[in-house]
């Protein structure tokens, strides 16, 4: 029998699981000061975003996507000091990723001996906008209890089964569906309640 309203209450009592993540600007400042832990957090925060732009947005094959992924974070690391607006790190990373994906596609089309004047196929703008929205939703998930965050991420983003989720989180598999529904309600409240469902400005800090 599933206990009502127990999606993460125990987790919520543990301070390490409820601590709010640093703002983008605070994270950038810590990175610039040489804080390796902050850098790891920054990579963690934006890794899905960069990956999705490369693989879903531009449909790069895995090897090309990996090269772009590493190049994006190398450039971010090297050029963080010249970012004009620390809050604009996200649009900066998005633009950098898009540019490197385009470079990669153009290089590929030249190598393939195809019509070198033909531009590679660009992703639909609404897909890139949807990725921005998806980032905001994931950001809102940080406001949820740990169990909710885990359940939603494992089921929808990692494609894990009820059984796997139940085993990993120590929950009866038969309760996962109802927990998902409740967690989605909480997510909707968190997402809409804070007015975060607006896409970020399309451009910001340094463009490279």
């Amino acid at each position, binding site marked *: 029998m599933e206990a009502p309203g127990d999606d993460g209450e125990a987790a919520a009592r543990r301070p390490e699981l409820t601590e709010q993540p640093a703002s983008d600007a605070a994270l950038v400042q810590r990175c610039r000061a*040489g804080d*390796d832990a902050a*850098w*790891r957090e920054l*990579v*963690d925060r934006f*890794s*899905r*975003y*960069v*990956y*999705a732009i490369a693989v*879903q947005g531009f449909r790069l094959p895995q090897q090309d996507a*990996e090269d772009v*992924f*590493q190049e994006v*974070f*190398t450039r971010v*690391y090297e050029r963080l000091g010249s970012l004009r607006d620390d809050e604009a790190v996200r649009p900066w990373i998005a633009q950098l990723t898009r540019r490197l994906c385009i470079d990669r596609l153009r290089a590929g089309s030249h190598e393939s001996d195809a019509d070198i004047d033909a531009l590679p196929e660009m992703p639909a703008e609404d897909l890139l906008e*949807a*990725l921005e*929205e*998806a*980032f905001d*939703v*994931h950001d809102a*998930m940080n406001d949820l209890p740990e169990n909710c965050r885990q359940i*939603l*991420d494992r089921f*929808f*983003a*990692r*494609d894990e089964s009820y059984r796997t989720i139940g085993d990993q989180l120590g929950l009866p598999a038969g309760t996962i569906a109802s927990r998902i*529904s409740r967690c*989605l309600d909480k*997510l*909707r409240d968190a*997402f*809409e309640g804070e007015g975060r*469902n607006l896409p970020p400005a399309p451009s910001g800090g340094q463009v490279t």
Partner: protein
Amino acid sequence: MSAYDHEQLARLIGMLPPAPEAWVHAAQELPSARRGLDQLVARAEADAAFRAQVLADLEQALEAEGVEPQPRVVDELRRLLADQ
């Protein structure tokens, strides 16, 4: 009326699956890899015998410096030493 129903939220969550762990790990290790490379290159600049030793086995030199010899890091070390 809410702008987001469960189906929309589920679709948006699913649009950002995790990047491969190895990619994330490599990017997270960038600062320590850079420090290790800088130290190796500085020593190689000052010591020709050490430079030859590093060139003879780039992976081992990186490991001795506490840096994971990932292919990109090995390539970067090779490039930096060639530039000297």
